């Protein structure tokens, strides 16, 4: 078995054993999807709530996995000296990054399958042509959020990473259009939100996967910048111990 596969097997075993990780990556997005699709409390721009909430939840799922789960997991590994010990093994940084990336992608595939399935059951019928840009957006979002998660995990102690990442998650969940559309926020708050990575990702998924909607160009520009800058910053400042 290759070193990458051996590392990945361990990552999968540990991730699937941690209940709080499953809660963040699947439990919360599912809850948001079902609750806000059935209870008509959010002022969505679409006729039915599910048409906005379903694609927004896909963005939420990506943020949960690539920023929160990856960040917190890596932060504690760094604190426990796991990364240092791996650094003295033949695994190597490249294969470690590859194993972590594979874990994130595998988790996201499961999340997207489950969430899309449930959304379909709730009556969601997105236009087929929207999937390509939506998946491209989700990939950019993964890069941006993974960069942010690893930047936090690689510079702050484990418990602080836990607090900061969860705090950021909550702020972006509320202000990034993942439940309440950004247009409904007070002007200055919406302006700030559009510069952060959550709102452009939601703009891309909702704009692509809603019939007769489109994606505003600013969303692609902002998200691409984040997807480039955040991983570079993580590479620059990440400390292994």
């Amino acid at each position, binding site marked *: *078995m*290759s*070193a990458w*596969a*051996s*590392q990945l*097997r*361990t990552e999968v*075993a*540990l991730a699937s*054993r*941690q209940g709080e990780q499953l809660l963040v990556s699947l439990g919360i997005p599912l809850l948001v999807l079902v609750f806000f699709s059935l209870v008509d409390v959010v002022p969505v721009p679409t006729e039915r709530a599910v048409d906005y909430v379903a694609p927004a939840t896909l963005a939420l799922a990506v943020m949960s996995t690539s920023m929160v789960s990856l960040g917190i997991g890596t932060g504690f*590994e760094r604190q*426990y*000296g*796991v990364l*240092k*010990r791996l*650094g*003295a*093994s*033949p*695994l*190597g940084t490249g294969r470690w990054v590859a194993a972590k990336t594979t874990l994130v992608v595998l988790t996201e595939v499961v999340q997207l399958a489950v969430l899309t399935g449930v959304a379909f059951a709730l009556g969601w019928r997105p236009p087929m042509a929207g999937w390509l840009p939506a998946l491209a957006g989700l990939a950019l979002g993964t890069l941006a959020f993974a960069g942010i998660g690893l930047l936090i995990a690689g510079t702050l102690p484990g418990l602080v990473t836990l607090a900061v990442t969860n705090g950021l998650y909550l702020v972006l969940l509320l202000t990034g259009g993942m439940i309440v559309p950004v247009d409904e926020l007070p002007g200055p708050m919406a302006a700030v939100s559009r510069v952060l990575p959550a709102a452009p990702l939601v703009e891309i998924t909702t704009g692509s996967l809603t019939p007769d909607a489109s994606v505003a160009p600013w969303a692609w520009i902002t998200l691409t910048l984040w997807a480039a800058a955040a991983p570079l910053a993580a590479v620059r400042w990440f400390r292994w*111990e």
Partner: protein
Amino acid sequence: MVVEVRDLVIRYGDLVAVDGVSFSARAGAVTVILGPNGAGKTSTVEHLEGFRPAAAGRSRILGMDPVLDHRHLVRRVGIMLQEGGIQPAIRPREVLRQYAGFFDDPLDVDELLDSVGLAHRSTTTVRRLSGGERQRLSLALALVGRPEVVLLDEPTAGIDLEGRELIRSTLSDLRREGTGVLVTTHDLDEAERIADHVVVVDGGRVVAEGSLGELTGERSTTLWFRCHDPVDLEALGAALGAPARTVGSGTHVVDGPADPQQIARLGAWLAEQGLTATEIRAGGSRLEDVYRDLTGGGNDRSAS
């Protein structure tokens, strides 16, 4: 020599942790770096592990540079960190299989678990293992890739007697198989039991290096005795024709030849004075005495 360190200097900002250390370690032998905490042991080992760059000096493991050739050395060198390095949520068998997967020809995981006495704990999460069990798991991780050199930082620190014996016997096996073993410790007893070669460090410098015999033999011209009653050292020195001094509470030294005649004279003088010596020893001093002399460590035998 599998490890060679020459004039190594390691700095953390203004702090000089290692200040010109030189020593070497050979294959098929256990080399112990002995010294109190803060002596620079961990910095030296972590440099050899590739984690700390040298500010000056030159070191080689298996002929390679520990920092620059790190990615080649990781296949041939096994390490044990002073603490941590293993996920609390993982199980011994899982983490050993993980590391075994990084090597082309690893040891058999189950045999290895058995050899470090963890076969019955192979599916218990690490967070529920005792300190000694974790140390043994960490040792197993160091060995899984059949290393030619192992670097162990305080492997027996804070672990029970049974665990210590298991680690000692493992080190003996490694020595017999021709592996180069470099161990740090602040524990004299441990050093005395396992070392073929001792490097005594203090304040970032090597204060003595040699085999146990060489280190303790250097002081064989000295006569040592312990007596808990007050001793008139001047009178003793006059009677024996050699200067006498106190080196610790109740421990005294007579410099000069420690031959049988001198021992007899010391015994006679003590009897004359009505004093009882609890121990008289000529030459062959214990490492403890040498260590105290060299590091000025006083009674603090295992500063922790």
